[in-house]
């Protein structure tokens, strides 16, 4: 990434984190166990560090090899390793990040998506019905697929 791209990248990450921390405060307040933005700071910093680290690894590999996984594969892997029980500080890492709910973290992402949605509305209108139908077939497929395999293996291993 160029220097200017990095600046945008870091700003978007930091703003998303701040918005999510405040959103998380409102959301946890409603459920009766408020997590203030200040209490969310360690978790948010950890999320930011993991993300930036993953991005740097991706950039590094990109420089030496054409074959590369998407950055999310590295980000996810770093987050997994840091929270495996037994890894130094794993308990603290997991507990800190756990203070930030999954859904409040999604809201700022979808806010950016909402702002950019307008330009795609025409395409959405044209394909909307088909996408809804296909989604439901996909939902049906994952359930039936898993049920069929589970049924077969349970029979084969004599559990049922």
């Amino acid at each position, binding site marked *: 990434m160029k220097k200017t791209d990095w600046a*945008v990248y870091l700003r*978007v990450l930091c703003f*998303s984190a701040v*918005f*999510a921390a*405040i*959103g998380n405060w409102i959301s946890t307040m*409603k459920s009766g166990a408020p997590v203030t933005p200040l209490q969310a700071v360690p978790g948010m910093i*950890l*999320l930011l560090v*993991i993300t930036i680290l*993953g991005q740097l690894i991706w950039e590094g590999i990109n420089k030496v090899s054409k074959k590369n996984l*998407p950055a*999310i594969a590295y*980000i*996810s*892997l*770093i*987050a*997994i390793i840091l*929270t495996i029980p037994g*890894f130094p500080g*794993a308990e603290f*890492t997991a507990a800190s990040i756990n203070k930030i709910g999954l*859904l*409040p973290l999604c*809201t*700022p*992402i*979808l806010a*950016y*998506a*909402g*702002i*950019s*949605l*307008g*330009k795609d509305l025409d395409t959405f209108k044209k*394909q909307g019905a*088909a*996408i809804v*139908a*296909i*989604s439901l*077939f*996909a*939902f*049906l*497929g*994952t*359930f*039936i697929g*898993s*049920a069929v*395999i*589970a*049924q077969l*293996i349970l029979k084969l*291993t004599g559990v*049922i």
Partner: protein
Amino acid sequence: MNKNSHEWRIHILAFVLTMIAELIGTKRFDLGFTAFSLFPMLYVLIFGGIMGAAKVLPKEMMEEASPFIGISVLLLTAKVGSTIGPNLGNVIKAGPALLLQEFGNLGTAVFAMPIAILVFHMGRACIGSSFSNSREGSLAVVASRYGLDSEEGMGVMGSYITGTVLGTLFYGIMVSALAPTGIFHPYALAMACGTGSASMMSASLGAVIDAFPTMAEELTAYAATSNMLTSVDGLYMSLFIALPMCEWMYKKLTANNKHYKDGVPVGKAEKKGEE
């Protein structure tokens, strides 16, 4: 920063939308036989869509905001990863049936891709809709592979919205209809409930337990373990198996298909040329 940039306006608007949505909060609707919830993340999407449709936002601003989705979703990837680590030990303890039924999640593509192409003649949006059950992690996968403003991105976004609004309702009704038929053992049904979304799992599991109330405890354990497994393997399964499989199916199903030319639906071929 570029003087003509809309960046600050985008951040401020994203902040305002987020706050309004969180203040409204999650709304739960109980229909008696099933229930569904609307979440803040859905409101922000709708608010933004309305503003876009009403032409309140300049086109350049919408375009500038688009890559921000792919950046902010990275935080979510880190968050999801941090919930996997503590569970890795449990994965090893899960039995063969629980582990292998994870591959059943590829059923999304097996069921949806042929219908999308042979019946609806959809473009590449169907890849985004079909490779998974389109939960949060899937947004990140598509954002990094294709970008969320691609055809595939539109597919996964559309399915994400569909799943968020209709997912629990759909699973509740579908599983209540399937459970009493006796085709599947209750254990198999319970394992199938874990599709990687807590709310969808609860809706399906509720219907299974309703049909087999005496087994509630075992069924819950199977469903929760399966759901945990999917949240562990989902991202990697999507990247390395499901997406390549969808790409392959798309290629095979659109070749020698009179509704497609060079992998593009015939009606849309013209529009694609403009881009």
